[in-house]
């Protein structure tokens, strides 16, 4: 019986296969160059126009950073408050999780009308786009802090400031980091979408621009840049999360998948 190769190996093989197809299918004419330019051509164009792409990337990154401040900063804060304070939770959480059903993208034209086609509208949009899921996720995560911790700390004579700094904050770190990871992924998505729709700068804008002039290699150069950005962010966030909360990883090995999109975790990027 042939033994199957390890899963990780297969994943790398799949990736290699993708890259190979990306190169070969257009090269051999099996796929029209207009639809899928060869990988080498895409990389060539990316290198050629590297200054343009780099400048655009900076703008995109700037917008992502600013909207992360909104999405994660506000999202985690509001989520902690709503999740932690019973009254607010009962009152507001169902409302927010109902609002989650609305496709936020339809608000984008409002933002461009208000803020113009520059970075502000992107930041506003991506900020809100990321805010809801991060808030919902944090609200759910806050409730997983065991009340026993607070009881134990009180029995040891901790006063209120100590309860907050020595118990609540450390206990919420995993939730906070999950929120950061989620927020970053979503703001990248939000910024890219808005740059593609109406913009004057940024990688998404470049992609749209080149599409309208049917310059496929440059379109794909932009796509590649975004892919790298998104994946790099994910890997960084995971690595950071793992290091910061090493005790969490071991303890939570067999968590059940949280109910998708209910008042708990929203669907994209289940923790």
């Amino acid at each position: 019986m042939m033994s199957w190769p390890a899963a990780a190996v297969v994943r790398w093989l799949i990736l290699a296969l993708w890259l190979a197809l990306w190169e070969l299918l257009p090269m051999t004419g099996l796929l029209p160059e207009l639809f899928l330019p060869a990988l080498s051509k895409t990389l060539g164009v990316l290198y050629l126009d590297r200054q343009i792409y780099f400048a655009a990337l900076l703008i995109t990154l700037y917008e992502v950073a600013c909207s992360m401040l909104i999405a994660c900063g506000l999202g985690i804060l509001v989520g902690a408050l709503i999740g932690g304070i019973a009254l607010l939770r009962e009152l507001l959480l169902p409302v927010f999780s109902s609002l989650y059903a609305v496709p936020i993208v339809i608000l984008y034209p409002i933002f461009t009308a208000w803020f113009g086609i520059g970075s502000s509208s992107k930041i506003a949009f991506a900020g809100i786009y990321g805010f809801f899921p991060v808030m919902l996720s944090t609200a759910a995560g806050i409730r997983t802090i065991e009340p026993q911790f607070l009881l134990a700390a009180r029995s040891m004579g901790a006063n209120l400031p100590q309860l907050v700094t020595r118990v609540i904050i450390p206990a919420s770190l995993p939730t906070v980091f999950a929120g950061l990871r989620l927020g970053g992924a979503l703001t990248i998505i939000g910024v890219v979408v808005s740059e593609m729709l109406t913009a004057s700068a940024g990688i998404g804008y470049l992609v749209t621009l080149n599409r309208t002039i049917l310059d496929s290699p440059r379109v794909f150069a932009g796509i590649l840049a975004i892919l790298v950005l998104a994946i790099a962010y994910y890997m960084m966030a995971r690595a950071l999360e793992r290091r910061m909360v090493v005790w969490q990883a071991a303890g939570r090995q067999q968590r059940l998948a949280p109910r998708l999109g209910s008042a708990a975790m929203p669907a994209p990027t289940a923790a």
Partner: protein
Amino acid sequence: MTRTQIIATRLALLALVLAAWELLPRLGVVNPLLLPPLSQVLGVLGDLIGRASVQEAVAVTALEVIVAFLIAVPLGAAAGIVIAENEYLSDIFKPMLFYVFSIPKSIFLPMFILLFGIGFQQKVAYAAFTTGFVVLMSATAAVESVRADHVLVARSYGATPMQILWRVYVPSMLPFLLETLRISMIFNFTGVMIAEMYASRTGIGHLIANWGENFQMPQLFAGVIVLSAVAIIFNEAVRALEVRCSTWRT
């Protein structure tokens, strides 16, 4: 707080928001060109619903949403079930799914346009593409939620695979499946909207983008209100159904 108190408070908050929407522009606190008063928006809304062009756009969008959904759900579910059931495939593909989710799929829109041109097929294909992944992931979770010990008990009583499927898996997964449909529809709707707003000559999304470009704010807000209402109503309806079917779930 009792149930009625909660509902009353929420209604009060809503009334407050609506009142602000009406008064702030009217009083000039906020520029009424940027934020038209609520009454104006509602008036325009009433007018728009009557227009044939708007009704056509709604029909187009609805059709795209439905078709994309009908494509994405079976394909995504099948893929998800296959992955969940096979441990080897599971090990290979599940870690990849997290990466996939971090990628903004809207970046692939140009590819669909290059392939299909601008039109119905492109939008449906794109929406099905984005929705398919969500369905896949949810289906995987749904299958994994079926407890192994339940299956074991059934097998120990001699149940055939068919019986196990219908009498253990399906009831176990039913609430999950409804939730899957609900979440997938949210993503599906979003996908269609993005496609329509990006490059399209028809559909509500296109109308909204147009109104935005031309600074027709009352129409824009009217469109947003209607779409939001539809989305929320659908969501709550399915949620109510979920609750009915899952009283046994912890």
